[in-house]
């Protein structure tokens, strides 16, 4: 399994359309802290205080990192079929479920690593920015550890979601399009379509927000633990469906 994971990580490193979004998300993690600390206290906003640190950390490694990890692994998984590299992949390891497992493991490792790196960059930038504003650093604030743990965990799950979606659709443009449509359109219009408002909190984007922002009023929804379990469930369902399809379908035809 180690050699398969190593091959998947080499694919990531050698695919620009996969690692550029990750690098951009890390750059955005720094910019988000700078933007938030610069805007604090202006136009009626909350002034900076030691309590701002957890929110700065969540903002730096939040949805942008999740989106970048999702995109990277959609590109890598669906790209296997677009570029027909699946032929070489499955000649090297004919046990397709082992290959899918290696992809999932690699995606979750990537997510966790990028999430941690984003938090480290966010923490360093926050420390510099808060110090510049003469705000004491409260590393022992209860929300800090939560942010440092949840951001990589969420990003790992989004990596698995990306693998599942890519393997299921096998078409990079369709999978990326569906992910964007879901995040920006579908979850936005579902509340208008259903008389049951509570249903929205069970959807992936809302669950991710609940994990990220915990008990904040903006995302008062599922408890963070339940939301994390819901997201893990979505990842498991998509990954299982992708694995089942990959195990069953033929490789090396025009579509695969």
């Amino acid at each position: 399994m180690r050699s398969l994971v190593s091959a998947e990580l080499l694919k990531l490193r050698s695919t620009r359309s996969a690692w550029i979004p990750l690098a951009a998300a890390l750059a955005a993690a720094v910019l988000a802290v700078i933007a938030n600390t610069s805007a604090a206290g202006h136009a009626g906003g909350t002034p900076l205080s030691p309590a701002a640190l957890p929110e700065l950390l969540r903002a730096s490694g939040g949805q942008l990192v999740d989106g970048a990890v999702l995109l990277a692994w959609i590109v890598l998984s669906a790209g296997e079929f677009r570029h027909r590299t699946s032929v070489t992949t499955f000649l090297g390891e004919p046990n397709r479920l082992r290959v899918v497992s290696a992809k999932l493991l690699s995606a979750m490792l990537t997510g966790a690593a990028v999430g941690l790196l984003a938090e480290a960059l966010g923490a360093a930038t926050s420390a510099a920015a808060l110090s510049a504003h003469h705000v004491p650093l409260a590393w022992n604030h209860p929300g800090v550890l939560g942010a440092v743990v949840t951001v990589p965990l969420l990003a790992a799950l989004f990596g698995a979601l990306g693998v599942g979606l890519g393997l299921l659709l096998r078409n990079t443009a369709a999978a990326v399009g569906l992910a964007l449509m879901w995040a920006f359109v579908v979850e936005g219009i579902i509340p208008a379509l259903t008389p049951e408002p509570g249903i929205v909190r069970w959807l992936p984007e809302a669950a991710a927000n609940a994990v990220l922002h915990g008990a904040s009023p903006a995302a008062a929804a599922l408890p963070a633990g339940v939301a994390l379990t819901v997201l893990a469930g979505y990842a498991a369902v998509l990954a299982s469906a992708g694995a089942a399809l990959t195990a069953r379908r033929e490789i090396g035809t025009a579509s695969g």
Partner: protein
Amino acid sequence: MSTIAVEALTKRYRTVTAVDDLTFELAPGRITGFAGPNGAGKSTTMRLLLGLARPDSGRATINGRPYAELRDPLRHVGALLDPNVFHPGRSGRTALRIAARPAQIPGQRVEEVLHLTGLGAAAHRRAGGYSQGMRQRLALAAALLGDPETLILDEPANGLDPEGVAWLRGLLRRLAAEGRTIFVSSHLLAELAQTADDVVVINRGQLVAAGPMADLLEHTGASSLEDFFLGATSPEVRPAPATATRSRSLS
């Protein structure tokens, strides 16, 4: 020495029977040509052998086992099915390093096969910028990574210039002389006649003939492989397995 065996292999795609009750066995340590008209089922047979497609019935084995059950398959079987199986944004060297990882084949071997296939100087370039002939050489390099005793090559001469075709002929001869089993499909019958020791001919998914090239020509009175092929696979001729030659087994 390795053997390839196909037993009563059948593969259907909806209403089309791509491979129809096909049976043959290859002799180890020899080059066997695999010939048939377009759509005869050659590529499908090779994909079935390599576990990339599943048969509806029958069996395809290498050393007595289906490909999927081989331990470290790259070290036993090298396959070239299509030169367009590399990510266009990756260099030739990186594409091979990725292919080598599952079998833990060292980087030194990657450099060896790059050199062997004449791609050493272009190894750092992106595969998307390679010519058809260079992609074919890269695919051949990938097939040779594990130094396998069996090679399954689908149209390996496609896109190669005359010098490349001559180089490929020499390479296959050298590999066969080392005792490797080589199964190679081609539309270039004159080239196949020069390269192969044995030949398997199929038409509409069914076996037409299988045997040593010289025996086949002598037995049927054909003046060349092309002469035999055109006579045996013309639309008017229905495939008649095991009647065109003495035996389906080449071993």
